[in-house]
């Protein structure tokens, strides 16, 4: 009874907070406009297993709590018993509005794959799907990769690369020159629930690179630059053996590449290349590049032969090769790999990573200015795995991460980006084979 009453009070205060702050949210374009003091719903998401433990293919459940409850270690949250199932055959690809009142989802595969829907967050397991949906599958497949821009919840960007073929596939008289696919970049109006526009083009690499069989296999994790006139899109590279047509699983990697396109026209794709790292920078299911207060974009790498790096893209939209930040060096590990990360302001970021010699996931607090990284001290577990992690929430100085080893209970952890303090928050009730994938 006492708890119920308290919940009612919290809820009322949340609603009051919304009504007061709703008109102030002008979407200024700065990084994360939230204030710690603001009340907001916090959505916790968990993935159900499909056929084997940890595969996350059984669908996604969400549950929302107040900030106070999220921080309260005496509160238990069970999305699997009390949550709301998001309409997606496989793991939903979620994003949330900056104020936490709306959840955005694009259904991943299934009959409604590619369908964008908005859910109003009503507290606990109550979510209301808004009437209007929009489907981007014609442009971006039923399994699209997309990110919400940090532009005040205005725009989502979905990207795709289709049908990579050799230039001489059907005309053997032509000499081999390249493997290329057709890229699609699509802008989605998150407020009007409409497709704003899209562009399709082939994106060439240098003739020499292409002759060796290198090509952009996938685009992902787009980010809007500070001037809001360019999108920087992460790439996942692949190499074919031009002599056999076989895909090579090990090859000499090129320098990390991103694709820069004009915004909002989405035209003039241009490839930029880093000399610092040779990893991909496509991330996986979560944003992988962020604009900091200094106007630079910081981008993490994956599948880097020397371990993950954080790369810097300057305001001229070129890689700043004088900025060298190796996570291997900073953490003192080998073969570091960034599963997901988020910039928290003031040069501080939190990184979910793993490294060679383990399958376990870890969290590090990273200082982009000092180029240092320290493993955060939480309760780790051998079954902790951030491979499918989607959502780290930054709200003011606070950084929220859901930490659950596969099949085991865990907690929400709250890190203070200013002080580095670690707070163990609400308990996350888990089920065999499942894991939590984010806080929004």
């Amino acid at each position: 009874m006492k708890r119920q009453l308290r919940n009612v009070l919290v809820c009322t205060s949340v609603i009051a907070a919304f009504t007061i702050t709703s008109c102030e949210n002008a979407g200024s374009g700065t990084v994360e406009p939230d204030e710690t003091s603001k009340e907001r719903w916090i959505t916790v998401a968990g993935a159900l297993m499909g056929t084997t433990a940890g595969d996350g293919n059984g669908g996604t459940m969400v549950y929302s709590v107040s900030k106070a409850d999220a921080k309260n270690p005496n509160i238990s949250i069970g999305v699997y018993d009390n949550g709301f199932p998001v309409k997606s055959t496989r793991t939903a690809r979620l994003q949330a509005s900056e104020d936490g009142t709306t959840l955005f989802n694009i259904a991943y595969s299934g009959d409604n794959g590619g369908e964008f829907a908005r859910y109003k967050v009503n507290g606990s397991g109550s979510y209301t799907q808004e009437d209007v949906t929009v489907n981007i599958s014609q442009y971006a497949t039923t399994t699209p990769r997309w990110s919400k821009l940090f532009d005040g919840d205005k725009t989502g960007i979905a990207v795709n690369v289709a049908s990579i073929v050799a230039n001489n596939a059907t005309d053997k008289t032509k000499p081999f020159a390249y493997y290329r696919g057709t890229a699609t970049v699509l802008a989605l109006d998150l407020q009007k629930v409409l497709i704003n526009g899209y562009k399709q083009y082939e994106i060439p690499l240098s003739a020499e690179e292409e002759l060796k069989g290198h090509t952009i296999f996938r685009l992902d994790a787009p980010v809007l630059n500070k001037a809001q006139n360019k999108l920087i899109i992460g790439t996942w590279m692949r190499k074919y053996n031009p002599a056999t047509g076989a895909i090579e699983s090990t090859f000499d990697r090129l320098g990390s590449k991103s694709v820069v396109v004009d915004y909002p026209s989405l035209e003039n794709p241009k490839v930029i290349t880093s000399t610092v790292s040779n990893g991909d920078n496509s991330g996986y299911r979560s944003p992988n590049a962020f604009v900091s207060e200094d106007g630079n974009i910081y981008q993490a790498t994956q599948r880097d032969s020397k371990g993950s790096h954080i790369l810097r893209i300057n305001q001229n939209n070129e890689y700043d090769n004088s900025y060298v930040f190796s996570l291997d060096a900073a953490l003192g590990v080998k073969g570091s790999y960034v599963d997901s990360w988020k910039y928290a302001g003031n040069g501080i970021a939190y990184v979910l990573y793993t490294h060679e010699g383990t399958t376990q996931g870890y969290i590090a607090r990273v200082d982009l200015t000092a180029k240092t990284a320290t493993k955060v001290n939480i309760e780790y577990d051998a079954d902790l795995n951030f491979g499918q992690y989607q959502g780290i929430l930054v709200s003011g100085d606070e950084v929220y991460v859901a930490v659950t080893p596969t099949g085991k209970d865990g907690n929400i952890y709250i890190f203070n980006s200013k002080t580095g303090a670690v707070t163990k928050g609400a308990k996350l009730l888990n089920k065999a084979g499942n894991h939590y994938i984010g806080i929004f």
Partner: protein
Amino acid sequence: MKIPFLLLLLLLFSVSVFAQTATLKGRIYTKEQGGVAHANVKLMQSNAVVAADENGYFMLKNVPYGQHEVMVTSVEIEPIQLKVTINKPQINLPITAKPKNFELNEVRVVQKSEKKEIETLGFAVNVVETKEVAQRNIQTNELLDRTVGIRVRQNGGLGSAVNYNLNGMSGNSVRVFIDGIPISTYGESFSLNSIPPALIERVEVYKGVIPAHLADDALGGAINVILKKGAMNNLSASVSYGSFNTFQTNFNGTYRNEKTGFTVKASAFHNYSDNDYEVWGKFVRNILPNGRYEYVRARRFNDAYRSTGGQIQLGFMNVKWADQFLIGYNGSDDFKEVQHGTYMSIPYMGRFTESQANVLSLNYVKKNFLTRGLEFNVNAMYSQRGQVVVDTVKWNYNWYGQISVGLNGNPIMRPTGAQQAAPTIMHIDRNVSTFRAGLNYDLSKNHRLVVNHIYYGIDRREQDFMRSELERAFIGTRNLQKNITSVAYEAKLLENRLKSNLFAKFYEQSIDRIDPVLRVVDGQNVRQENRANSSKKHTGYGLAMSYTLNPKFILLTSAEKAVRLPSESEVFGSPGENIIENFGIRPEVSYNYNFGLNAGNFYAGKHRYSFTVSGFIRDTRDKIVQRINPRVNDALQTNPFENLGKNKAIGFEADLHYSFDNNLRVDVNMSKFNSVFNVRYDANGREYDYYNRQLPNEPYWTTNANVQYTIKDLFKKKSALNLYYGFRFVERFYTTWLILEDFRTPRQYIQDLGVSYAFPQNKFVVSADVKNVFDQQAYDNFAVQKPGRAFYLKLNYLINNF
């Protein structure tokens, strides 16, 4: 597992021996028709029962001396009761019977007994007869779908992909055979989609436990299609036309020269349908340039199907040196457009498949081969199969069959390059050799030994003509060989009351992978072949038994340790998708059990009824699944297939047949099961939430009812008018683990009507059918609508004894 089997074995052999007993032999016959096939002879005192053979002969052993009352019953004769004194070791008793005033035609009675014979051996088997249905507008798959415990799930209209679910097991757990030969010898073009019921004698559906002569690694059951052997010297033909421009025709003829035994059998079919039926509802929508939905009602536009095939066999039948010696050729060809993928929400344009098969066969059967009681049969086949999958149209289409236009007014390209995936003109060629030989040896009248061997070899080559010549030169080939030896021991004990069949199957599979690679030798690029081989051996075994409590009640039980050997991709993985090989992968194993009761026929005045009820368990282990490593993402997958899964299905089914005065016939059946996730604990000992929960996407409850009413001598004497009504119910089910109404299939109530008129002598039969009378949205698969209301008309013509 092994101990109960041994115990049962012991039981089988512990047949008690009686003192002072005699053997009672004889024949039941009518003056009009000769021997009465399969009549029941019962000794009233001891309840001992025996069935007469096809010619009316019977033998009762171990009959104690003294006065006995004998009761003889059959559907064909009036019951007879007579007294006999047993006072010497051998008694001969001829019995003259009076035929029942029964207007069933003779052929049907014989077929019924054959059906009954197979169905009472102990296996969980349904024998689906086609005789009557063949004259109607009914597809073979529709016929199977009406049978108890079988759910046929088809991805659209005539000719579209089919998946069979037998008692909760489906996909590659269920194997289809044609005359005992795995259907992959024939390929898509000669399949249950294309072969009309008129060319089929019967279909045997074995659930869970499969007899030794159907040797393949079938984990959950087998469907064996017995093609028409044909009455001698007849010719039948039919033609049918109906909705969606569906045209179907077939003919079947057999000729045998009385003197020389020279035999010719020929049959052919042709099917065509536009399948342009209407679809509507929440899955049928056009996506507007801005991404919004426009829900439409539209006709399918890329779904046509055509198949043509024929078979000719020449040879000798019923001659001194062979009961059957036939050399044959079977040729077939089909074309199928593909309207959509797994879900109909995205319509395709221009995707189609084409396949052909040319099959040469040799068939030899001889009873009393070399020695009395030994039957020898050989079946050798060589087949060349070709298949082409074409998908080159690069634009998006909407449900009106128009190119979708994007925001900028330009056509939108498919995000995958072609309709379903990347553009492809994929040619897959297979050479299949199949050799089957069997020996049946009757050790004595009641004991038989069966040895069967099948060799099955496939060489597969594939080439995608959308790839460069160079790339095609580096596509690997796969060769697969399977050898399966099976032995069975069949015994009839306790005066034929107990029939048992104990069998074992020895599987051997070898797969060669030949992948061309480029190596640098002396500074030169050289194309070399990278070879790997995987060999697997495994043993399965089982037992089927039936026990006749009394002529009306037969108990059936069967059990098998069934095996499915890992497929080529499960062993070798797929380097292109970064799935690594796993040579240590084990076969999937399922322990299958069936228990049943077969009861009837019961008579009450003009009412007649019979029923069967049965229960089953399928305990599947070592299921092959791919463990996803969540760390590494889907394009960098390095996880092989592993034996991690466990499922269990428990269920029951019931089948009721009722008839009144030979005018009304009602068949009702239902099947319900729980097919559950059966892995209980995760690595840390925590119980899975899914444990014991129904697996998603399983149609677990189905009911069928069929009613037939016959009016005889309407318009003309000796004619028959048949009225048919069919009803199907499928309970709704969830298609994902999420309990979400959007991912649940709707409940199905589908009703069909039909009428047929047989002119006197049964030579000419006309039939008309209305399917899905109330134009319901019918679904076998989630988000794939099946045809709505449809009308068909069919003409059948039969010439006997030309």
